[in-house]
């Protein structure tokens, strides 16, 4: 079987499994839904950390920003946002299905664009920072956002915002969001897969390998960094908007800018699967999610201790990840040549 047919088979298999899963395992649908969120997280983080070598600890910022932007748009279309949040849920939204869907689509679009705008604005700040300062700075951005939103009355401060409920049967709503996240994750996968094949992909890899050399060769590093960060933000903004609606309720520290629940695991998933590879983040996300759900089930109460340990072990002892490990072991499978086809190269040309 040729490689392309094998790839086609792989994609087909995953597609079919993903399409039937919510119907076959419908009691696990919420876990399956969040799985796609995790996959999207890992893919978007890897664009920055894995492919460009900028290890952000604050990408969750765009997820939260998208969530809040979308919520404000959706509520703001029909109510006064400040009044609505001040009522702490006493005002019940009453949307027709059409209003709901229009609001969701519009909110998601504005969220995606708003996140991109924030990314561009922030890039002036964060990309002057390198190495560990970049990681600390981005972490600071995410934490600061959580704290500021938590003190901002207009968006409900610490008590958050309730969002409209999906119109229709609850099961339909669950499937609706399952497929929404599925599509978002798949789109981001194929988008970045395409991107890594272009000049752009090569340039960000060059920045990862030796930024100083890339600059010395005239590459506009700042432009590439800003664009990559914005692309991550774009997909995270969409994801955040959807997640707010899926969760019905949003709040700054535990849902939107949830550094411990989502922000750091983004990184860990990409590392676990193998950063800087196409499939690594996807594999890592699936693995992490399965482990997480299992610890939830079997170590209830101790789940976060277990996950903290998983982070430490992954980072310290298994940083090359599954794909990185496989690449070391079977480089030929990944198109990396280690042997020389002929030793005569220099001699004859010299």
């Amino acid at each position, binding site marked *: 079987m040729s490689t392309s047919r094998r790839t086609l088979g792989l994609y087909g298999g995953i597609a079919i499994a993903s399409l039937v899963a919510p119907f076959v395992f419908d009691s696990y649908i919420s876990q399956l839904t969040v799985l796609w969120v995790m996959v999207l997280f890992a893919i978007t983080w890897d664009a920055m950390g894995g492919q460009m070598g900028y290890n952000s600890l604050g990408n969750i910022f765009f997820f939260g920003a998208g969530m809040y932007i979308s919520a404000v748009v959706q509520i703001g279309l029909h109510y006064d946002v400040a009044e609505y949040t001040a009522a702490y849920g006493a005002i019940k939204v009453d949307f027709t299905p059409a209003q709901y869907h229009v609001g969701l689509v519009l909110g998601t679009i504005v969220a995606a664009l708003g996140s991109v705008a924030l990314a561009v604005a922030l890039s002036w700040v964060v990309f002057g920072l390198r190495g560990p300062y970049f990681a600390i700075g981005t972490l600071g951005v995410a934490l600061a956002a959580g704290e500021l939103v938590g003190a901002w009355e207009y968006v409900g401060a610490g008590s958050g915002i309730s969002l409209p409920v999906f119109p229709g049967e609850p099961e339909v709503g669950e499937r609706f969001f399952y497929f929404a996240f599925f599509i978002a994750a798949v789109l981001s996968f194929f988008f970045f897969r395409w991107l890594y094949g272009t000049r752009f992909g090569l340039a960000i890899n060059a920045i990862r390998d030796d930024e100083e050399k890339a600059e010395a060769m005239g590459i506009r590093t700042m432009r590439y960094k800003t664009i990559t960060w914005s692309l991550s933000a774009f997909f995270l903004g969409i994801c955040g908007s959807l997640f707010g609606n899926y969760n019905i309720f949003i709040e700054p520290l535990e849902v939107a800018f949830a550094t411990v629940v989502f922000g750091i695991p983004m990184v860990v998933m990409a590392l676990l699967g193998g950063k800087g590879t196409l499939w690594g983040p996807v594999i890592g996300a699936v693995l992490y999610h399965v482990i997480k759900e299992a610890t939830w089930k079997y170590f209830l109460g101790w789940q976060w201790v277990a996950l903290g340990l998983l982070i430490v072990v992954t980072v*310290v002892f298994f940083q090359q990840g599954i794909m990185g490990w496989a690449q070391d072991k079977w480089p030929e499978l990944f198109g990396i040549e280690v042997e020389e086809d002929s030793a005569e190269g220099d001699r004859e040309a010299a």
Partner: protein
Amino acid sequence: MLSNFQLLFDFPVLNIELLLNGLMIGGIFALAAYGLALVWGVMNVKNLAQGDFVIMGGYIAFVVYKELGINPLWALPVAGIVMFGFGWLLYGLVIRWVIGRDLFTSLLATFGMAIVIQQLLNLIFGPDVQTADSGLGTQLFLDSVPVQEIRVLSLAIAGILALMVILFMKNSRMGQAIRATAQDPRAAKIMGIDTDRVYAFTYSLNAAICGVAGVLISMIWVIQPFYGIGHSIRSFVIVVAAGLGNLPGVIISALGLGALEQYGGFGFGTEFQQAIVVGLLILVLIVRQIMQARHRQVVQ
């Protein structure tokens, strides 16, 4: 919100109170920040579990106070010793494998440790805010400014401890070995210094310093399992603002941070206090960047 700042003009005495409180808390921040600078400078490890060590120290004081029913001041030596041992354990289990790796690894690994510590504390003590009462009273300063005796005592203890550590680093054999290793680990190794032991000791010393700082925090402020991250960020703010190996800078930045936080918390409301700390982190990073951007080269 603005009216609070107005109050500061109307009642100048409030300024003195805020400033004094800020300086006294800042003195304790300086301890943890000094520990971070030590570990960062000697081992090139950025310890994001710094604040969680502080909170652990606080809970040790809380246990001494609540369970043993004695004055939490007794927890000072206990916390120092227990945290020293804890630091040694963590070094052997985790940190030792992180040294010499890229800096991101140490950040993430210590963040993972921080999560584990927070969650264990949460399981043991629950999520409530706690404090340990030293039983000391309050004095009036200048006849009008209330000053808690424990705060003054804490500042004095922090000062004494800092002095002890500095003298130790200057005069003891281990202190000299630590400084030699910080300068050039390879050379130190060739000269027969057991760098692995030096690292273990440095990390443990840092944990002990944090533990003592935590005891003081628990007596003059509050502790809670998840407050560690705030203290970690304070340490980073201070060290980034001061620069590594700049002890006077660390002390000044720490006192400044303490005062700023008090003012900010009073002016904007305490719900903004955390935001102020994180905001300051971003601010010092940006300032550092602007100072460097004056060069043609972007310095690491």
